[in-house]
């Protein structure tokens, strides 16, 4: 009788806790279009990333993107492996305290050609501002490098802006302005230099 009571107690606690903790989670199943062996391989890769403390939603998204784009299984596996490595490298560069979004954005910046040392420098510069995330700066960095701005130059500019406490909104405007200049035919180095100086001057003027 006592055992029945204890079991009922444990069940009641487990049910209440589990139901209250349920959150709308992203779909973390693998598409049925992939073969069973591919799904097993992907599950192993994703489990390894999860155990390493890396964000796994970008990996699931990569799988689904591959299926949507009709990529063959080998290509999907290769893409997930590569992204997993990039996520690990980004986390190493940004530090263990980096948030999942920062790691994902950092991985993307690495893919765009930014060096891990540049990510670490960015983290050091932002470190003075407490826990404000670097996601926007990393997204801007990846975008600039993808549009043809030399990665080292893009990293130096964004790092300088971050070190001067330029806001996320201003960073996004900076990206748009550089993009506009590039579309207008201005050389990347010239566009980046001019827009960086303009933003720094603006920040200096606003300083009390």
């Amino acid at each position, binding site marked *: 009788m006592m055992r029945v009571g204890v079991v009922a107690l444990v069940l009641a606690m487990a049910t*209440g806790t589990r139901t209250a903790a349920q*959150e709308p989670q992203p779909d973390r199943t693998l598409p049925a279009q992939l073969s069973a062996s591919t799904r097993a391989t992907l599950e192993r890769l994703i489990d390894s990333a*999860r155990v*390493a403390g890396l964000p796994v939603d970008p990996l699931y998204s990569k799988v689904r993107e591959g299926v949507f784009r009709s990529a063959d299984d080998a290509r999907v596996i290769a*893409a997930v492996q590569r*992204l997993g490595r990039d996520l690990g490298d980004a986390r190493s560069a940004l530090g263990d305290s980096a948030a999942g979004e920062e790691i994902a954005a950092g991985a993307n910046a690495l893919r765009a050609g930014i060096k891990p040392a540049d990510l670490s420098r960015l983290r050091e510069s932002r470190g003075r501002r407490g826990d404000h995330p670097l996601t926007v700066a990393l*997204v801007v960095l990846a975008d600039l490098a993808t549009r043809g701005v030399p990665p080292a130059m893009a990293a130096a500019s964004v790092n300088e802006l971050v070190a001067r406490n330029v806001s996320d*909104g201003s960073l996004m405007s900076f990206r748009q302005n550089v993009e506009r200049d590039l579309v207008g035919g201005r050389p990347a180095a010239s566009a980046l230099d001019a827009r960086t100086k303009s933003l720094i001057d603006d920040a200096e003027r606003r300083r009390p």
Partner: protein
Amino acid sequence: MSEPDKSPNPRWLNEISDELREGVPVRAAWRSRLLDEVAHARRPSADDTYDDRADDTSVGIPDPARPSRGIVLRPLTALAAAVLFAALGAGVTYATLSARGGTAVARSDAPRSAGRGTTLASAARTGDRDDRETVRFTLTAPNAAHVAIVGSFNEWNPVATPLVRDPATGMWIVSLRLPPGRHVYAFVVDGNVKADPAAPRAADDDFGSSNSVVLVSGSAS
């Protein structure tokens, strides 16, 4: 010719043990949760010292010098506690669900346009966990017959989220409620995948063309 059975156990016992050795299918959500907990479990550090008196794993050998930690419950006490915890669990669940439902109805954010930098603005903090933000995606494609959006927020499903054409401007528009975070997406214009020309680009071109990025912030920035 069948091989003689060398096992000392009866056949029925071997069959049962074989069956028990086979892997048990586990739901993906449970598996995912378990591995998340493993990932977040405290890792032993070099500073940890072994203390056999503090080792709770040696449950098989009772130490007469240590008082028993067992909990003795009377049947009626256990039953009363079970009822109490069940009521507590139901109460927490009800409170959680009520808070979510009420907020979903009460919230009415003005849509923000993707790719214009405004997606960085924060959703109003309401004290609950639903800090999704309405983001408006637009694409100028006056000659297109069909435009949809695919991305990490709709499982890259090309039929899940079509855009609607504004006949006056020729612009294709859709507004989506997105959770905070970094979302990767692309447009599908008459079957062709196309990055959003107004948004930051993602550098991942594993499958051909590159995608776009939209950031939704759930906290003040």
